C-alpha cells in the first residue's frame, strides 16, 4: 500500500481518502475509536473529546483531525482509555443517569461506551441537578436529565430539517439544551417525529411516547454485542 494514502492505527494500516478525518477512515476500515458527539452523517462538533487519540505523539480529537500520510495514531492504549473513562464519569455525575428506568438503556451510546471502557463507578460526587422533563409535545418527550450536550439534535434540526428546534445555551458548567420557542416547550415548535432530529440522540433525551419498553431490557442492541463490534449503520460495508 502506498505510503501516501494510509496511516497506522495501533499498528494496523488504515487507508484513507483525501480530506477524511482519522475517525472517518478508521470507521470505514472497521476499526472502533470511542466517540459520542461524532456521527458519520453529520459535520463533526469536536466537543466530547472521547475520540481523542495520539497522532504522531500528540493528543488530538480524531473526529476533527484530518488523516495525514504515514501518521502514527495510537488509540486503544491505557493512557487514553483512562482519560476517556474520566470524561465518561464526569458526564454521568453531571446529569441524572438512572439507567434501570431509562427507555434508552441497552441502546445508549453513553452507557455502551462506559461498558466498553469498564467504567465500574461514577467515581466523582453526583451533582443530582434538577432538570424538569418537557412532556408538552403530543408524540415526543424530552428528558433533559440525560443530555450530554453532543449537539447532534441541534445539527440535525438545523442542517437536515431546516428548523432550528434545538440550541445549546450557556457556558461551561451552565451549558444546557434549549428548545427554540418563546415558551421553551417542544409543543410550541414545528418539531415532528419525521424530523432527523427525532432520531439522532445517542442517549435517552428525545424519546417517542407510548412505545417505551416494547423491547425488554436485556434484549437490546448493546446487550447483544459491545459497541466496539457494532458499526454505525451508515458505515457498515462502506
Amino acid at each position, binding site marked *: 500500500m502506498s505510503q501516501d494514502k494510509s496511516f497506522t492505527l495501533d499498528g494496523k494500516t488504515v487507508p484513507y481518502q483525501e480530506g477524511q478525518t482519522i475517525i472517518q477512515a478508521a470507521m470505514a476500515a472497521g476499526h472502533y475509536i470511542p466517540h459520542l458527539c461524532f456521527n458519520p452523517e453529520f459535520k463533526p462538533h469536536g466537543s466530547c473529546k472521547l475520540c481523542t487519540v495520539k497522532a504522531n505523539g500528540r493528543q488530538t480529537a480524531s473526529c476533527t483531525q484530518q488523516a495525514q500520510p504515514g501518521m502514527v495514531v495510537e488509540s486503544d492504549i491505557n493512557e487514553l482509555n483512562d482519560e476517556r473513562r474520566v470524561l465518561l464519569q464526569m458526564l454521568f455525575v453531571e446529569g441524572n443517569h438512572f*439507567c*434501570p428506568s431509562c427507555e434508552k438503556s441497552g441502546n445508549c451510546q453513553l452507557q455502551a461506551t462506559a461498558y466498553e471502557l469498564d467504567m465500574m*463507578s*461514577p467515581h466523582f460526587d453526583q451533582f*443530582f441537578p434538577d432538570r424538569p422533563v418537557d412532556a408538552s409535545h403530543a408524540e415526543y418527550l424530552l428528558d433533559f436529565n440525560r443530555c450530554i450536550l453532543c449537539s447532534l439534535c441541534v445539527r440535525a434540526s438545523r442542517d437536515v430539517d431546516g428548523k432550528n428546534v434545538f440550541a445549546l445555551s450557556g457556558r461551561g458548567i451552565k451549558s444546557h439544551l434549549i428548545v427554540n420557542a418563546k415558551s421553551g416547550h417542544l409543543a410550541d415548535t414545528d418539531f415532528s417525529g419525521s424530523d432527523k432530529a427525532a432520531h439522532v440522540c445517542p442517549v435517552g433525551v428525545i424519546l417517542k411516547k407510548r412505545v417505551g419498553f416494547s423491547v425488554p431490557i*436485556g434484549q437490546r442492541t448493546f446487550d447483544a454485542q459491545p459497541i466496539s463490534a457494532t458499526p454505525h449503520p451508515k458505515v457498515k460495508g462502506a
Partner: protein
Amino acid sequence: MNAPAKPKLKVATTSLAGCFGCHMSFLDIDERILELMKLVEFDRSPITDIKHCGPCDIGIIEGGLCNAENVHVLREFRANCKILIAMGACAVNGGLPAQRNHLSLPLILEEVYHAQHGLVDGFIPNDPELPLPLDKVHPIHEVVKVDYFIPGCPPSGDAIWKVLTDLLAGREPELGHGLIHYD
C-alpha cells in the same frame, strides 16, 4: 500429614437504602453457594442475623445512604472490612432512592404522610427510635473509600460470582461485556 485447612475468609453483607434485590440476585448463584461456603464464612449478613459487623476480609454493601443509620452501618463496615464492595446501582450511584433528590425532604414527607388523598389526620412519624432521613440520598463512595464496584439493578448472580471468585483467587475483578450492566 495433611496440610492444615486454609482459614476461611470472613464476609459481611448488608442492605442500606436498597430493596434487597441485590441480595436476592446474590442467591441466584444457586448451588455455587456451597462452593462459596467452603471458602468463606459469613459475619453480619441477612443469612446469619448477626447485628454488628466484626473484623472481616470482605464487606458487601447493597443500597445507598438515605438516613443516618445507613451512614453508621456503612462506617462500621468500612472500619472492619479489609475490602469493601459496592453492590448494585443504589450503592454505586444512589439508584432509585436518589430519584427523590430533586425534591425537598419536607415536601416529600408532607406528601407521603399528610397531604395525599386518603390520609386522614396523617402525621409525620417522629419517634426518636427512627433514624433521621438525610436531606439527599448519596452513593456510598461519597462517604467512605470503596474498593470495588459491581454495577447493575441488580447485578446478575453471575456478575457477583465473578467478582467474588476473582477476589478469592487473588485476581483483580473484571466483568467485561455481558456481565457489566447498569440496568
